[in-house]
C-alpha cells in the first residue's frame, strides 16, 4: 500500500525555485490500477519518479508498506527498487548489446540470483509476454511492441508489488499498444499494483481511477469509466 502525505518537490532552475509537486496527498491500495494524467509540465513524471524511489520528495512523507521511504538512504532505496518496484518506460530502455533473454535476466544478475533460477524465471517471464521464440533476438531485431513486451518481462521478473509505467504505449502503434495494455491489465488482475502515466485517454480508460495533475497539484480524481468528464475538463483547459 502506498500512502503519500503532503508531498512536495521543488527544483532549483537557475535562481528560480520550480514547484513540480505541491502538497500531494494520496493513497493507493495494493492491486489498484491508477492512471496519472495531466498536461506537460504538470508534475506527472516527477510523481512517478518519487513513487519509484528514483527521486526524493523535498518535503512530506511517502509510506510504502508502512515503511517511511522518504527517509531511506541510497542503498536502502536501491533495495526497494530492486524488490518492490518495476519500471516500464516510453522508450523501452533495453540494453542494445544484450538479447531479449539477457535483458530480462539483467535485474536478477545484479540481485545475485543463481543461474539456474535465472534461466527458469527468464523463460517464464518471456512466456508470459508471448516472446519465447524471440528470446535470443537483439532489441534491434524486434518490433516496437515486442521491445516493450521484453521491457515488461524485465520489469516483472523480480516479482515486484508495484509496476510503474511512463507512457508505455507512447511509442507504439495502436495494435501493439493494445497487446501491451492487455498484458498490463492481466498482470494487474493477478494482484500487481499498476500506476500508469499517460496522455492517452484510451489507456487511462482501463484504470480503476484517474488522477489529474495540474501545476503540481491533484486537480481531480475520476473513476475510469467517467472518461467523458475528463474529456470535457481537458477541453475546458485548452480554451483557457
Amino acid at each position: 500500500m502506498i500512502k503519500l502525505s503532503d508531498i512536495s518537490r521543488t527544483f532549483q532552475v537557475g535562481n528560480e525555485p520550480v514547484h513540480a509537486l505541491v502538497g500531494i496527498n494520496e493513497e493507493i491500495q495494493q492491486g489498484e490500477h491508477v492512471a496519472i494524467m495531466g498536461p506537460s509540465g504538470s508534475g506527472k513524471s516527477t510523481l512517478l519518479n518519487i513513487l519509484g524511489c528514483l527521486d526524493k520528495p523535498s518535503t512530506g512523507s511517502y509510506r510504502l508498506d508502512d515503511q517511511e521511504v522518504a527517509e531511506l538512504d541510497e542503498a536502502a532505496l536501491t533495495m526497494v527498487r530492486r524488490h518492490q518496484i518495476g519500471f516500464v518506460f516510453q522508450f523501452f530502455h533495453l540494453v542494445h548489446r544484450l538479447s531479449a533473454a539477457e535483458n530480462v535476466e539483467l535485474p536478477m544478475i545484479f540481485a545475485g540470483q543463481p543461474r539456474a533460477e535465472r534461466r527458469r524465471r527468464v523463460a517464464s517471464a518471456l512466456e508470459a509476454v508471448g516472446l519465447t521464440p524471440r528470446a535470443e533476438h537483439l532489441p534491434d531485431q524486434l518490433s516496437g511492441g515486442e521491445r516493450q513486451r521484453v521491457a515488461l518481462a524485465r520489469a516483472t521478473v523480480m516479482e515486484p508489488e508495484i509496476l510503474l509505467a511512463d507512457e508505455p504505449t507512447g511509442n507504439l502503434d495502436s495494435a501493439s499498444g493494445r497487446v501491451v495494455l492487455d498484458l498490463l491489465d492481466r498482470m494487474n488482475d493477478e494482484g500487481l499494483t499498476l500506476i500508469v502515466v499517460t496522455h492517452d485517454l484510451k489507456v487511462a480508460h482501463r484504470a480503476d481511477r484517474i488522477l489529474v495533475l495540474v501545476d503540481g497539484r491533484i486537480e481531480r480524481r475520476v473513476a475510469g469509466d467517467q472518461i467523458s468528464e475528463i474529456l470535457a475538463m481537458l477541453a475546458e483547459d485548452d480554451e483557457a
Partner: protein
Amino acid sequence: MTLADLFRFSLKGLTGHGLRTALSLLGVVIGVAAVLILTALGEGARRYVIDQFAGLGTNLLIVVPGKTETTGTVGAGGVPNDLTLQDAAALVRAIPEIQRVAPLTMGTEQVAFGERRRQVAILGTTYDYMLARQIEIAKGTFLPDEEMFRGSPVAVVGPKLAREIFAGEDPVGKIIRVGGWRMRVVGVLAWQGVKMGVDFDDLAMVPVSTAMQMFNRTSLFRILIQSSSHADLDMLRDKSRQLLTERHGEEDITVISQDALLTTFSGILAALTLALGAITAISLTVAGIGIMNVMLVSVSERTREVGLLKALGVGRRQILSVFLAEAALLSTLGGLIGLGVGWSAVAVLVRIYPAFPASTPNWAVAAALTVSMAVGITFGLLPARRASRLDPVAALAGR
C-alpha cells in the same frame, strides 16, 4: 552478483564498441611490449659484456703501465718506467700464490706465405696466456711452454688468417714470414670471434720476446696475472703492486682486477636496463590515460543504461564495479597480449642476432603486468565513479 557474472557483463560492455576497445587495448599492448623489448635489450647488453669477460678467463689481474690516478707530487718526469719481461719474471719468482703470469705485447705486421700477404695484429705472449685466457686450439699446438726470455721462431695463427693466406693448405709446419722474420706455424686457433676489441680469428701469436724484438720495444703492453683462487685476488693485487713499485722506485703501474671491472660494467648496465624499463613504463601511463578516455566516453554514451540499471535496483557499488571491471579487463587483456607480442619480438631478435643474449628479466615482466593493471584500475576509477554517482532520473533522460 558473482564475479563471473560481473566480468561477463563487463565483457559484453567492451565488445559493444569493438573498435574503441581495440584501440585502447593497442595502447596497453604497445606499452607492455615496449617494456619487455627494451629491458630485454638492456639485459642482453649486460649479459653480452659479462660473457665477454667470462670468455677471457677468471681470477685475473691485469697490470697496465702508467698510473691512472692524477697526482700532484713531482714525479720522475711523468713518463712511467717500462713494464718489462724482468718484471713479469720477478712476479713469478717473488709471489708464490701466483698461479701463472702472461706477459703481453701487441703490434701489427705483415704476415706472408708464398705470394699471399695480410696485415694483421701480432700478439706476443707465452704458453701461459693460453691457459689464463682459455684459448682453444683447432690444430697443432699453442706456443711452446718455454722460458719467457727465449723467443723461438714459431707462430700460432688465427683461423681467418690461416684461411686467407694458406688457401686450403694445412698451415701446421709451414714457414711464414712475419715482417722480416721467418717463423714456423705450430698451431691454428679455434674460431672465437672478437673479444674485448681484439679479433682473435685474424691475428698471429708469437713468443713475447720475439715480438718485442720484432717491434723493437722494451715495455710490455700488459701483464696478466692469474690467481688459483678468487679469495687471493685482493692480496695478490696488493703484493704485485708493491713488488713492481719497489722495482720501479715509484708506483707507475696500475693493477686492475677483472672482476671489479665486470662488477662495475654489470652494475652500470643493470641500471641502464632499469632506466629503460622506467622510461617505457611512462608509455604505459599514457596507455592508462587512453583507457580513461575510452571509459569516460563509454560512461557518457551509456548514461541511459546507467539510469536503467539504477531503476532496476542496481546499487552504486555494483555500477562502480561494472565499469572498473571493464577498465581492468582492458588493461589486463592488453597486458597479456603485450606480453605475447613482447616475448615474440624478443624471440625473433634472438633468432636474428644469436650472439646477442637478449632476454627480458623477470622483474620487468612482473612490473609491466602490475603497472598496466594498476594503471587500468586507477584510470578506470574516475569514469566508474562518475557513472555510479549519476542521478537516476537525469540519467534515464540521457542527461
